């Protein structure tokens, strides 16, 4: 029994030592050059010239200075964690990770900030900076881990790692995996939400023209107003209004704006939105929602006694927000992503 226990202890001690050795190899305390032939050289980089690099061997710091063509070096990593892809002439040193978070660089060249990371097993376990629970990536999905202490550990062969790291311009520009997972904003979703945003802008244009319609009855107008409000996330949304006769823009909350549209002092109003097909990229804001802008043209004509009294063409910028709201499904609360219209600005007003 004692013998068995000793064997187990020896095996455990041995595995621990092996693990420590492997770890030490992954995170060197000196500079590293990974050459095209696959060799890694522990060194102290002396100088980086236009065409070559100069270095001394880490185990012979008083020895000679060696030269190597940059085109023969896949990846150079300094002991402080900054790295360079020398074979790429445009590559510049990417500074080491900030001290706030570790950074996991995936095979898709995405940089995920993590509070904690453990790559000792078959997988990379981590807690993302913004998440409460642990997350897991397969080791094949990870190129490298940049620890907040400065070191970089490669999990992929140097050639693959260099190709991926070459696309990382900064450790501070990264994707949030938690947000991506939550939203699953892949190409199909992105196109769906951008089209949905354009559809909602189109609907708003329709409701506005209905509100202006002097022949429509009050019941229909009220319905149009309520339907228009539903297109917005909240009724504290601002709408900016411009006029050819005034330099100063006016701002109204959406309900007040809709009321004013309904009450316009013309016998007849023509209001048409057109060119509703341009939307900027949706970008993640500070509150976890995505934001973009739709730019449209509004044609406005006001008639009195059958004659045009005022007309203009206005370019309007509508902020769109991709956000979540809670719904109850089978007794459970679920978060649903949807696009809403938000503040409406005015860019240009021209005489028609």
């Amino acid at each position, binding site marked *: 029994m004692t013998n068995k226990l000793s064997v187990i202890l020896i095996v455990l001690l041995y595995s621990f030592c092996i693990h420590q050795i492997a770890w030490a190899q992954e995170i060197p305390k000196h500079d590293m050059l990974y050459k095209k032939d696959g060799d890694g050289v522990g060194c102290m980089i002396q100088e980086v010239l236009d065409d070559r690099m100069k270095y001394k061997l880490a185990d012979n710091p008083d020895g000679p200075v060696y030269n190597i063509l940059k085109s023969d070096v896949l990846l150079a990593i300094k002991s402080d964690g900054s790295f360079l892809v020398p074979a790429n002439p445009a590559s510049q040193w990417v500074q080491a990770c900030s001290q706030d978070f570790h950074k996991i660089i995936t095979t898709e060249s995405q940089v995920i900030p993590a509070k904690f990371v453990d790559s000792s097993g078959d997988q990379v376990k981590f807690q993302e900076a913004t998440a409460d629970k642990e997350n897991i990536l397969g080791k094949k999905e990870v190129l490298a881990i940049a620890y907040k202490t400065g070191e970089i550990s490669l999990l992929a062969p140097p050639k693959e790692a260099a190709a991926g790291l070459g696309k990382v311009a900064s450790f501070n520009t990264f994707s949030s995996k938690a947000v991506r997972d939550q939203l699953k904003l892949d190409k199909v979703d992105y196109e769906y939400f951008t089209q949905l945003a354009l559809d909602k802008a189109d609907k708003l244009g329709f409701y506005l023209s209905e509100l202006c319609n002097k022949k429509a009855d009050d019941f229909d107008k009220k319905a149009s107003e309520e339907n228009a409000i539903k297109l917005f996330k909240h009724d504290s949304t601002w709408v900016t209004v411009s006029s050819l006769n005034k330099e100063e823009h006016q701002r109204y909350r959406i309900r007040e704006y809709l009321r004013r549209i309904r009450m316009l002092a013309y016998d007849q109003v023509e209001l048409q939105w057109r060119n509703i097909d341009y939307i*900027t990229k949706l970008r*993640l804001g*500070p509150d976890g929602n995505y934001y973009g802008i739709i730019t449209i*043209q509004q044609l406005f004509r006001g008639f009195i006694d059958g004659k045009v009294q005022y007309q203009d063409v206005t370019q309007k910028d509508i902020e769109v927000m991709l956000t979540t709201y809670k719904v109850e499904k089978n007794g459970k609360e679920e978060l649903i992503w949807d696009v809403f219209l938000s503040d409406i600005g005015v*860019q240009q007003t021209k005489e028609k």
Partner: protein
Amino acid sequence: MRFHIRFSFLFLLILPELVLGQIRNSGEEENFVFQVKQMDEFIDRFNNANYTPIKKYLKEKYKIEDVNRSDLIKGLFNQQDQDWKTEEIVEFLADVTENKPPPYLDFYDKGWYAELDCAGLYKNKKENFTLVLSIEIIEATGGAKWVIEGVSADFLKIPPIKDYRKGLNPASYGTDFMGLIDALADTANYQNYISSDQQPSQLLLFFDELYEKKLVFKQVNRITYHFLQIDGWAFQVKDFNRNTKNSGWLISSLSQVNEAEKKIYREKILFLK
């Protein structure tokens, strides 16, 4: 050679009208397509991104499959300005299209700024002031936000120091800094008691006045974007509101500047430290 470059450039300047605008019956809708409607679109056209509305339109309406980046960037200059230095534009185009790899603009780049001419009320009087904003990435989420980096307002004056000799003397520690009693009452010379790294700025004054409700923000009148992230160059982009194809957010000025000059540009034009 010089003639050749000039000839090529002149030809190419016309080319956008020939290629992008074999288009006689322009009309308002077509102008809207050509107009650079947002800075996003400006950046996409500068980078010759695949999905710009103009490329889609040219392909669908005129069967033009391929527009080169140089032509697209030329279309981003305000072509109604007669004072462009042709050689400078040629050099700029070569730098941004022929360098390996060519420089591209990224919305999240550092080094581009929005300068906002604003109107407000200061002590109930109409006043104009300038805000300079830039994009900041939030490390914890990967999201981004615009942040105010600088303010310039004639009505926000930092009072000059009256007596440069005033300050907490080196022996102040010996009296447990009793000198602070007089120092903090000496408001005419308060800069003397503050670290030279932390001198008062118009930005702080601006927020003080907002907080005190003496200043009320009204509206943004005009915006100029400053792009300083391309090596050796700085350019400004403004909105040209006109019913032509060459309209919207366009390059209004271009300067060849080195890093030292960019530092001065940031300090003098953008009021940044």
